[in-house]
């Protein structure tokens, strides 16, 4: 649970600024970004996520490095990602859509293990 998983902000709900749709390892999830409220997050920013909460804003280079670390540790990372996928993170009654926006189940990572940004649109 101490693993920090990098994710890219896709969308921030203007009505609930604590909630962001984040792409994590090829899956879109609602992530609580309330602890980074001073950072003025915008789509395309990268964050480091711990147990459903973003703790740090990072750059893309660091996201790649964090992902390389996670992949290097093998099973623990697999378990963490499996848990995150199973999680219904913050899909509260007020936000039925948040957290259920499933992205592709296939991680958007090349065979070289490099993390790709979503849709390569940035």
């Amino acid at each position, binding site marked *: *649970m*101490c*693993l*920090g998983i990098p994710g890219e902000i896709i969308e921030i709900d203007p009505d609930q600024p604590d909630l962001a749709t984040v792409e994590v390892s090829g899956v879109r999830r609602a992530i*609580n970004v*309330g*602890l*980074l*409220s*001073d950072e003025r997050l915008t789509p395309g920013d990268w964050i*480091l996520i*711990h*147990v*459903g*909460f973003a*703790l*740090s804003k*990072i*750059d893309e280079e*660091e996201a790649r*490095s*964090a992902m*390389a*670390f996670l*992949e*290097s*540790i*093998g*099973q*623990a990372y697999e*378990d*963490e990602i499996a*848990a*995150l996928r*199973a*999680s*219904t*993170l*913050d*899909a*509260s*009654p007020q936000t039925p859509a948040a957290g259920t926006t499933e992205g592709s189940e296939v991680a958007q990572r090349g065979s*070289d*293990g*490099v993390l790709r940004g979503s849709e390569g649109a940035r």
Partner: protein
Amino acid sequence: MRFVDEYRDSDKARALAGRIAALCEPGRTYKFMEVCGGHTHTIYKHGLEDYLPEAITLIHGPGCPVCVIPMGRVDDAIHLAGQPDVIMTSFGDMMRVPGGDGSFFDANAKGADIRMVYSPLDALRIARDNPAKHVIFMAIGFETTVPSTAMTALRARTEGIGNFSVFCNHVTIIPAIKAILDSPDLRLDGFIGPGHVSSVIGCAPYEFIARDYGKPLVVAGFEPLDILQSIYMILRQLAENRSEVENQYARVVPWEGNLKALDVINEVMEPRAYFEWRGLGFISHSALRMKNTYADLDAEHLFQVPGGRVADPKACQCGEVLKGVLKPWECKVFGTACTPETPIGTCMVSSEGACAAYYNFGRFTRSRVKEATVRHSTAQGVQP
């Protein structure tokens, strides 16, 4: 190692290793503790000790959240789970941790409802979905996970969810480091400071280590080069007779930490007078509990908790491993009676535990070879 630039990194590592060797005083030995289990993982996975001069020994510290939970607290959680209409939740790592009377998995086999969750917010959702039940989140972890528990408690309060509470087992890293510094067992020359914990608490809380104990501490990232770079920075301080807190991981860790996270923690929780750590014993002000103003969200206020002490199994030497006094493979049951599949001690349960990391990755490192030649022990016995 699946870096695209694996070979370039390997060259960089060798270059750094050369600079590290050049800084070592002839005839002097160095013991550095990496506090965080994530660092332990990187060190074993990438065989970093093989890059270092013989004079440097890396000591694995207590920074594995699951590893430091004493057996009595596991029993307490199982007791809470046994109360009528209670659903207990915790992180997956906790499920296999043995208590005095078995693990959470064992308790479930006997009829308890203990569920693993990825986030405390999942536990809150289970509470929302099960209004006739009371859902307890067994909160564990250092400052990395504390803000998430505190945020979840605030959310429960805001939403008026009345059937949710926290069984708080959060621990704080600074008192543990102080306990290790005050322990006569170990003489350390410096610290590789934890990365993610520091992104919450910042770097200033470590300053007493440099000021009062005269030991350098360098907050480090998780890549192999980060750790080598941090070792170089510690050695450079020692060579220049300095002891300071330096931040090698500034790309993630702000010097002041995450002020919002610290505010949220202070709103919801306060230090306990003391808390038992596996292996380290009772350490004052080393853990957090829910404040009285959040008693309605505090499982220890809402339910009777037995609070018994349970001695670790005699064969288990997790305590010595957590203090850095023993290396994982020096434990009598390492790899034989105690394996990740059938753990006796917590250090083998969690992926962040030194024993699990060593078992999975570290078998062929320098220290392993050294150990085999020095101790003539049954090297075959520790192979899985």
